[in-house]
């Protein structure tokens, strides 16, 4: 029963709480019959016992130890309930915090949960993003939220600047609540503040801020258990906050890039219709590897340069290379009279020893010559453009060449043609012809199907041709790559000159 009690061992060392009680009992009165009752109780080998004494006829005192099973059970139940509440709280905290990827909503949720379950009021101090002003979120026990932007030195508060740097918290009792500055106390919180706990909100490598818990004066200090729970909560809140912050940063980067990388809206230039459309692959980011640009001629007689291309790969990486190529080509526009030279310069600028990332593209130099439009086309490893003649004939431009960015030497063969009024030249990327879909889901749209569809577009305005191609590709596919289309259409003349027998279809239907 008493594991340390062996013959010869003093009672004090075997069961330390019993012998003082015994001595007290014996000391009260030497007369055994007049002894008062003495209550004693304490732990033996981790279990709790009550001790009852009885005086034996010999005058000796006998102690009987009775285990306080009820007390143990009550404590266990209490501890279990407390643990269940903690687990429930942490579970709720996780799901509430993870529900939003908005940083400010996350901070509010942190303050709200902490003020409701951990303290009488909670304050989330976020690190200053620019300059010195720190966003601070307050919440009282009733759930009233307040947000301020505070210009203050965190070092003036004991433990705050440490917490903002992710240093583990110091115990609450070390911080004198009376020294808290006003800006750290929610409006209407009764003074003086009883006790305060400042804990870091740990992020991924960087601090996501600090959580300040406040208690009224009449409440006790934070216990060790409460500080542990607050730390567990702060870990979850910190993870949620840094996830939200990372997401916000990513979204900002993507937004900035997209603004620059999305192809432009096209407008007629010097009487020639230009229309374009672009859609990124659904599986990846919004920006992708297909691109087009129109660099208008400075004067009506000059050549407008149209570029349409496709960078190998997908997503942001492809988009970055796309941006580089588009900038280079814009700078080379003055040299566009010689497509071969432009392509060679671009090729040289793109060559890299580390990878074989390349682009295929088509250059089109377009000039308006009194209503009919001359188009000079050069394909650098790209699908040859299609030309929709009046009457519905579709021709493939006889141009070909080496893709750019992969080989030190490239070749290119240009093709020149004239578009009669109403005729259209269509530049497109392989995302359209390689789109898999159809009745069985795995057939490619193909160049033949595209040519047949375009044959029905004779005499149709550029914007409508683009619309039609995009619609067909969308209807066809299950899964698809980036797609881009540009249509160049010669301006139609007046009705009278158009009805001359050479331009059937458009005005006779």
């Amino acid at each position, binding site marked *: 029963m008493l594991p340390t009690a062996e013959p010869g061992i003093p009672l004090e060392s075997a069961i330390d709480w019993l012998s003082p009680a015994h001595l007290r009992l014996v000391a009260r009165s030497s007369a055994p019959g007049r002894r008062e009752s003495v209550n004693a109780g304490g732990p033996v080998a981790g279990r709790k016992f009550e001790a009852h004494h009885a005086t034996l006829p010999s005058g000796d005192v006998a102690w009987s130890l009775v285990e306080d099973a009820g007390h143990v059970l009550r404590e266990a139940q209490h501890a279990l309930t407390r643990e269940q509440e903690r687990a429930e709280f942490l579970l709720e905290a996780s799901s509430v915090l993870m529900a939003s990827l908005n940083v400010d909503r996350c901070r509010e949720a942190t303050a709200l949960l902490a003020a409701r379950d951990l303290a009488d009021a909670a304050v989330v101090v976020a690190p200053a993003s620019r300059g010195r002003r720190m966003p601070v979120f307050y919440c009282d026990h009733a759930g009233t939220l307040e947000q301020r932007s505070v210009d203050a030195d965190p070092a003036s508060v004991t433990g705050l600047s440490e917490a903002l740097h992710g240093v583990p918290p110091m115990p609450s009792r070390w911080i004198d609540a009376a020294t808290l500055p006003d800006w750290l106390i929610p409006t209407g919180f009764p003074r003086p503040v009883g006790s305060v706990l400042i804990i870091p909100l740990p992020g991924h490598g960087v601090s996501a801020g600090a959580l300040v818990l406040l208690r009224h004066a009449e409440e006790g200090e934070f216990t060790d258990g409460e500080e542990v729970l607050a730390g567990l909560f702060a870990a979850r809140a910190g993870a949620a906050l840094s996830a939200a912050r990372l997401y916000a940063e990513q979204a900002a980067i993507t937004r900035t890039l997209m603004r620059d990388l999305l192809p432009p809206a096209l407008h007629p230039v010097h009487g020639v219709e230009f229309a374009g459309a672009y859609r990124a692959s659904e599986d990846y980011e919004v920006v992708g*590897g297909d691109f087009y640009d129109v660099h208008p001629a400075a004067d009506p007689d000059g050549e407008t340069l149209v570029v349409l291309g*496709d*960078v*190998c*790969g*997908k997503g942001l990486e492809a988009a970055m290379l796309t941006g580089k190529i588009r900038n280079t080509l814009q700078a080379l526009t003055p040299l566009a009279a010689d497509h071969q030279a432009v392509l060679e310069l671009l090729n040289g600028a793109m060559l890299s020893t580390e*990878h*074989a*990332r*390349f682009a*295929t593209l088509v250059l089109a130099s377009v000039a308006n010559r009194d209503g009919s439009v001359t188009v000079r086309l050069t*394909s*650098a*490893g*790209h*699908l*040859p453009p299609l030309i929709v003649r009046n009457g519905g004939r579709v021709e493939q431009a006889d141009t*070909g*060449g*080496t*893709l750019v960015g*992969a*080989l030190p030497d*490239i*070749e*290119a063969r240009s093709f020149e043609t004239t578009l009669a009024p109403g005729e259209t030249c269509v530049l497109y990327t*392989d995302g359209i012809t*390689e789109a898999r879909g159809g009745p069985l889901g795995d057939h490619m749209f193909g160049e033949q199907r595209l040519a047949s569809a375009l044959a029905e577009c004779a005499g149709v305005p550029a914007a409508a041709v683009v619309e039609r191609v995009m619609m067909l590709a969308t209807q066809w596919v299950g899964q698809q*790559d980036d797609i881009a289309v540009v249509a160049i259409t010669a301006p139609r003349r007046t009705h009278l000159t158009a009805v001359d027998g050479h331009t059937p279809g458009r005005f006779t239907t």
Partner: protein
Amino acid sequence: MNTAFTTTTTAPQSVSVRIAGDLDYETIDELVDVGSQLLTQQNELSDLHLDFRETTFVDSAALSGLLLLHRRTTQAGIELHLVRRPPFLDRVLQVTGLFGHFVPADDAANDGDPNSVGQASSGEARAR
């Protein structure tokens, strides 16, 4: 769609990698790895054959990977042969202007389908 690479060593100097399925953005890295490992592991290697007979699709990322592999084999003094090419692959190589780069003139004459003797001109016909 499952893509599989099967490596067959026909002689110490010659290895063939059969590519079954789609060769694209998702699968090309593995082929480049397989090929690059062969270059470093087989000291006597002089000819690396990529067999496309069971290949169903090749996208631009795959072309990029093939260019990379070609660069590495050339640096190692090994010849890369693209053999049993389906018509769509020849078409891709022609549009991108890479046909001459990947298929030397003497290869083009006889690798259309090594199994069909007497059709030596088929590969060349596609080259045009």
